[in-house]
Each structure stands twice: as structure tokens, then as C-alpha cells.
């Protein structure tokens, strides 16, 4: 049986990082296939290679028997490959109907020919109607697209993608940022769409409920390769998949006793709501972190961990009604530079080293920013906890490896003398050696009285360093795990973190 889409030996690297390291995949006509994988697994690169946004270094993409490896995105749409994006793209000022009419007319070649016969437009109009019915938006045809809810916009986008009469539809996180009811409505529409037609749907998604509720086949990516491919139950039972999502417990030995006696609360978060535009990411998150504690914020990717840390660091303004207290002082809504001065320091998952500045200059910026003459975290002390940095001070940020950048990013954050250190995915993509250094460093940092809140998607690192874990799912805090839970086999943790 011939495949609609066939991918052979696909590879793509960026500088020294291999995002997609050889993927082979064949999709037969019809049905829904989901691509999942932890952060950095190569999902986004893979879908960009399929849609034509990126050109692979090696390998071929064959669609309906024709090689499309080097076709640009617009040409792929014409041969029958359509995609929707992670971020919604609709024309907010046009009506719902007009939004769909744009691609329909463009495809019919009517957009630029005002003198065509009027009944040709009737056909187009009928098709617009049909498409809106397909996604369940017919009743809203004359409303402005800007007035639609987040979920309805997504459906509108799907209708627009369907206007090109594709055989393959690529959906990039179709339910990101949606509440449960809205998500279920979008899911029902997508399911109905797949059932009614021979359309082949490939979706990339974080939300496991969506993946398992929708897909007949699941492909798991890890480090740019397919490590599992099969029916949902098969994937659930796959040992390697569980390992990747839960983490291999043996990489870091757990430290002897839970260190440092913890004291009064340093951070108190109450009813934190946050998001981006219409996407409501965090729902009523409340927790406290005691002085001297190391707390892990766990959850699969896309559950809102990064948004939580960004809200605490001031990079994302929390929504109204949220309360954040730092050592008793209300700080919700303060700008990031103010929070930095108050002792909150944030290390993003992508490190954000100043690439054109040397490692030493990266630290100096942190000193100068707060106009401090000295810091408790001198270079000598930083070299003690991150020995590999000792020989790298003159090297430009862009020439440091991922692990070195990670250490430098934490060192830079420490230079601001924080009382609260926020770490996003500290162990992601690091070699076991660096992970060990990092675990020891955190223990040392805590012994100096710094409180740490880290976000991670697997148990491995949290198990090694954390006193407590807060587990998130779909923007909510759903479970608290003690140190004993972390060390043992807490079934709730397994359920929330594994696929």
C-alpha cells in the first residue's frame, strides 16, 4: 500500500546541534497520527521540515509519490499539504466567512480577477459554507474573527487550511492554551473531520489526553530519532518511552540526607493566573516555598512550568487577582529589573547567554545591572562549584557548548546575589557528567542560603536535588510529592509524568 507521506533518512542540524538525526516514517492514507516527545526531541524541527519551512541537510520527503524535499511551503500547500501553526493566524478584522473566503478564492484563482463570472463566486461561497460547517462554525459566519474564542479561532484556522483541499493536514499543538471544555470541543471537531474524510492528519502535541484521545498511532521522538512507533497502548507500555518521560533514576545518586533545615516561607504564590493574549496558561496556581528549600515544579512539557517561572521573575505579568509575595512583600506585577533587585534571579531553559560577550563579561553585566560593587558569588567561588568554567572566562558566549552555557547562565544569575533562584529545565540536554556537577552545585548553592525553584519535565534531576515536588498538569497544580514520594514509586507521579 502506498503512503501519502513518506520520510526517509531525514536529518537537520543547527550549528553544532543535531535537531533531527535520521527519521524514517511512512503515513498511509487517512487517520490521525501524533508525534510526541520531550522538549528538545526535534518535534518542531520535524514539522518544519515537513511543511517546507526548513530544508533538511539529508534525506527526502515524499508526498503522494512526488519528492517535495525542496519545495517551499506555498508549493507544498498547492500539492495538498496544509498546516496550522502553534500560534493562531487569522485576520481578526475580517468576518469568519471572509477569513475562509481568502484561501478559497485564492485557490480558485478569483482573488485577482474581478471580471470573472458571478456564478463562479457562488461556487466559492458554497465551498466557504461547507468548510465552516465542517468545523462547526457555520453559525458564526458573519462574526468578526477577532471576537472568536481561542478554540474557535483554532477551528477557523483549520477551516482555512482545509480550503486548499489538502490530503495531509499538519496540526501544531492544536489545543495549546485552551481550557478543558474548549479543548474537548476542538478535539470532537478534529475527530469528526478525520472520520468523515480520507484526510490524513499528523499532529504535534504535548497534552497526553489529546494525543491518546485522538491518535490511532503515536510516534515518539527523542534526541531527533524515532524511538517508538505504534498504537497508544503499545506506547504506554514501552519501557524506553517511560524512561525518557520519567527519567533514568540511576544517572545521579541521591544525596544522603535532605539538607538544610527550612524556615519561614520565602515565596508565597496565591491564585496565580497567567497566559499570553487569549491563551490562558496558568489557572489558579497557589504554593509556598520555604527559605532554603529546593522545590521542583514538575510536569510534562506544555503544562505551564515556564510560564509560572516567567511570572515569578516578572517577564510575564501575572493576570489580575494573582498574588505573589517575596519574604512577605507583594511583588506581583513588578517589572523584572525590580524583582532582580529584590533577589529573584531567573535562568531560562535556553540559557540566553549574551553571545557576543565573553563569559566574564556575561557575569559583569549582572554586576553592573544592579550597580553592585561586589557579589558573594565571586569568580573564585563560582569556579569551585562549576570547575569547567575556570578556563573559559575569555571565551565568547557563542563559542561555549550547551553545558558550559548552562553553567554560565546559573553563574550569571548567582552574580546578582539572589535569595530565590528560578531554574527552567536545568538538566535538559546535558551530559551525565554536567548533570552531576549541577546537582552538587545546587546542594552547595542551597547551603549558602539560596532558595531554589526549578522546573523540570522528568523525575531524574528532581529526585537527586529536590526536597519537594509540585506537579502541574494543564496549567494547574495537581499534586504535591514529598521527598519520599520522589525517591519511591509514587503512582501519581508516574501517571502525571509518563505518557
Amino acid at each position: 500500500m502506498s503512503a501519502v507521506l513518506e520520510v526517509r533518512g531525514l536529518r537537520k542540524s543547527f550549528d553544532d546541534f543535531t535537531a533531527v538525526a535520521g527519521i524514517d516514517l511512512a503515513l498511509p492514507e487517512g487517520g490521525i497520527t501524533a508525534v510526541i516527545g520531550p522538549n528538545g526531541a526535534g518535534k518542531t524541527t520535524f514539522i518544519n521540515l515537513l511543511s517546507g519551512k526548513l530544508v533538511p541537510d539529508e534525506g527526502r520527503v515524499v508526498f503522494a509519490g512526488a519528492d517535495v524535499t525542496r519545495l517551499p511551503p506555498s508549493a507544498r500547500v498547492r500539492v495538498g499539504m496544509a498546516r496550522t501553526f502553534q500560534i493562531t493566524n487569522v485576520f481578526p478584522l475580517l468576518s469568519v466567512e471572509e477569513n475562509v473566503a481568502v484561501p478559497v478564492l485564492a485557490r480558485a484563482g478569483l482573488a485577482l480577477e474581478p471580471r470573472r463570472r458571478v456564478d463562479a463566486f457562488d461556487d466559492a461561497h458554497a465551498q466557504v459554507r461547507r468548510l465552516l460547517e465542517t468545523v462547526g462554525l457555520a453559525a458564526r459566519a458573519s462574526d468578526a474573527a477577532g471576537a472568536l474564542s481561542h478554540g474557535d479561532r483554532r477551528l477557523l484556522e483549520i477551516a482555512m487550511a482545509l480550503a486548499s483541499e489538502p490530503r495531509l493536514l499538519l496540526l501544531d499543538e492544536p489545543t495549546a492554551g485552551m481550557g478543558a471544555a474548549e479543548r474537548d470541543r476542538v478535539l470532537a471537531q478534529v475527530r469528526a473531520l478525520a472520520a468523515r474524510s480520507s484526510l490524513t492528519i499528523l499532529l504535534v502535541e504535548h497534552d497526553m489526553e489529546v494525543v491518546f484521545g485522538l491518535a490511532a498511532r503515536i510516534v515518539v521522538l527523542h534526541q531527533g530519532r524515532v524511538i517508538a512507533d505504534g498504537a497508544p497502548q503499545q506506547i504506554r507500555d514501552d519501557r524506553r518511552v517511560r524512561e525518557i518521560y520519567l527519567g533514568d533514576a540511576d544517572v545521579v545518586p541521591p544525596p544522603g540526607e535532605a539538607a538544610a533545615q527550612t524556615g519561614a516561607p520565602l515565596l508565597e504564590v496565591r491564585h496565580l493566573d497567567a497566559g499570553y493574549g487569549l491563551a490562558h496558561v496558568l489557572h489558579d496556581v497557589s504554593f509556598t516555598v520555604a527559605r532554603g528549600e529546593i522545590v521542583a515544579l514538575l510536569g510534562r512539557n506544555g503544562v505551564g512550568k515556564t510560564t509560572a517561572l516567567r511570572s515569578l521573575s516578572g517577564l510575564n505579568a501575572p493576570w489580575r487577582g494573582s498574588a505573589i509575595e517575596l519574604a512577605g512583600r507583594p511583588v506581583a506585577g513588578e517589572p523584572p529589573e525590580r524583582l532582580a533587585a529584590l533577589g529573584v534571579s531567573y535562568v531560562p531553559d535556553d540559557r540566553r547567554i549574551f553571545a557576543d560577550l565573553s563569559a566574564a563579561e556575561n557575569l559583569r553585566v549582572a554586576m553592573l545591572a544592579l550597580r553592585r560593587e561586589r557579589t558573594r558569588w565571586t569568580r573564585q567561588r563560582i569556579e569551585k562549584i562549576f570547575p569547567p568554567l575556570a578556563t573559559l572566562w575569555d571565551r565568547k558566549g557563542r563559542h561555549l557548548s550547551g553545558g558550559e552555557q548552562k553553567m554560565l547562565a546559573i553563574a550569571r544569575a548567582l552574580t546578582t546575589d539572589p535569595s530565590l533562584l528560578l531554574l527552567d529545565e536545568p538538566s535538559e540536554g546535558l551530559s551525565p557528567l554536567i548533570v552531576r556537577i549541577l546537582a552538587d552545585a545546587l546542594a552547595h548553592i542551597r547551603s549558602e542560603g539560596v532558595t531554589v525553584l526549578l522546573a523540570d519535565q522528568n523525575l531524574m534531576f528532581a529526585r537527586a536535588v529536590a526536597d519537594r515536588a509540585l506537579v502541574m498538569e494543564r496549567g494547574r497544580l495537581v499534586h504535591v510529592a514529598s521527598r519520599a514520594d520522589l525517591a519511591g514509586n509514587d503512582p501519581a507521579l508516574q501517571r502525571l509524568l509518563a505518557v
Partner: protein
Amino acid sequence: MLFQGLVGLSEAMYLWLVAAGLSLIFGVMRVLNFAHGSLYMLGAYFAWVAFRVSGSFWVALLVGPLVVAAVGWAMEFGFLRRVYSAPEAFQLLLTFAFVLILDDAVKLVFGPVYQSPPTPAALSGAVLIGHSVLPTYHLFILGVGALVGLGLWVFLEKTSFGLVIRATAADREMARALGVRASRLFTWVFILGAWLAGLGGALSMPVRAISPGMGELIIIEAFVVVVLGGLGSLRGAFVGSLLIGLLHAYGLLFMPVFELALGYMAMALVLIVRPWGLFGIREG
């Protein structure tokens, strides 16, 4: 030949001073300041007034740019900072509004007539280069332009404030997370950019005709320079200015018909081959 080159380079220095400020402001603040040419114009008018009052060219050269820097502060503090988070179109509209307002304000105060103050006595001589005579003032301009370039380089590369500026230009969000007070930094960068434009205007006062439309003339060329050199790159602005200056000078000599078009042709060529400009950073 050499003579023509020197004339071209000295003409390039006005452009460089304007383009440097424009590029600096864009590089750090991501704002395209249409009104930058108007600041250049104000520099010329303020220097002219200062000259009329004091009778000293040197006082004029000091006072003119400083007053422009103050105007820059008022623009940034009073207006621009309100639209940083707005779409780019709003920033362009706002700075364009300043072009219209400042032009008319100058017309209102000084009248639409062309003004041409004298060259200062100390710089009114000339030097013999080959068989041609080059006004001393041109050499002075060249020296000032080079000095400003050197000063900016030392400031950005060797000082603490420069380091923070470079970090903020590279990643504003991360810089703020480390505690950089970005809004205050922006104000200073804008003041510096305005001062540079004002200096260019003040320097142009004795040799170029002062008129209310002089800002528009130079801003378009400055945009050409900045696009050519790479948005946000000071080195690009410097090389771009020299290139445009030389193109004009030699263009005038060899193909006077095309002289005005040459700069745009150079820009089009660069945009085709390197859309991010000669020294710009490729994005995405």
C-alpha cells in the same frame, strides 16, 4: 582624484554622525527614529543661534548639540517610551509626527529663508593637495568624524556602560531579568543618539545651507547608509557613510547624471546580495 575622495569623505562625516545615532537607537531600542534628521536640523539651527549670541563658533559647537540632546530627552521621556510596546507602525507615526512638527516649528521661528553663517576664522583657510585646494574645514570635519567614531568604539567596547548597552541590545529581556533598568538606559541611548545628530547639524552649519527641509534630505540618506551597513551596526553605519560619500564624490566626477541614484543603486545591490546589510546580523 585624491582631492575628490577627500571631499567625499568629509561630506560623509555629516551622514556618519546622523547614521551613527540612528543605528545606535535602532540597535538598542528597536525604534526607527524618522525624526533623527530633524534633530540634525535642530543642531544646525541651535548652533546658529548660539553663534549669533556668543559670536564664537566653538561655543556654538558645544551648545547646539547639547540643546538637541535635551530635546532628545524630552522626546524619549515624554513620548517615545509610551509606544515601545506598541506595533512598529505607531512608533513610525510618532517619530514622523515629530518631523512635521519640528519642521514647522523651525519655519515659524526662523522663517523659511536659507541661512548661511560664516566659516570660523581659524578654519577658513585651505590646504593644497596635489593641484587642488581643500578647505581646512573639510579636514576638521574629517577629524571630528573619526574622533567620534573612535570615541563611540571605546565607549561601547571598553566601558561598563557600553557593556550593559551591548548586552541590552543583544537580549533586552534577559538584561532586564538580570536587573538592567532598560527604560533608563533607553533614555540615555536616545540622548546620545540625539547629541550625535545635533553635532552633525552644528558642524554642517558653516558650510551647508541651513533650511527647514535639511532634515528630510539627510534622513533618507542616513536610512540608505544604515540599511546598507546593517541595521543596528555602528561599524556598518561608518563604512556605509564612507561608501555613500565616496560614491557621490566620484559619481559627480564620472557620471554626474547618475550621481543621485548611485547611493540607492548601491543599497539595492547590497539588499539583493546580503539582505541583512554589510555588517548586520542575519536574523532567523
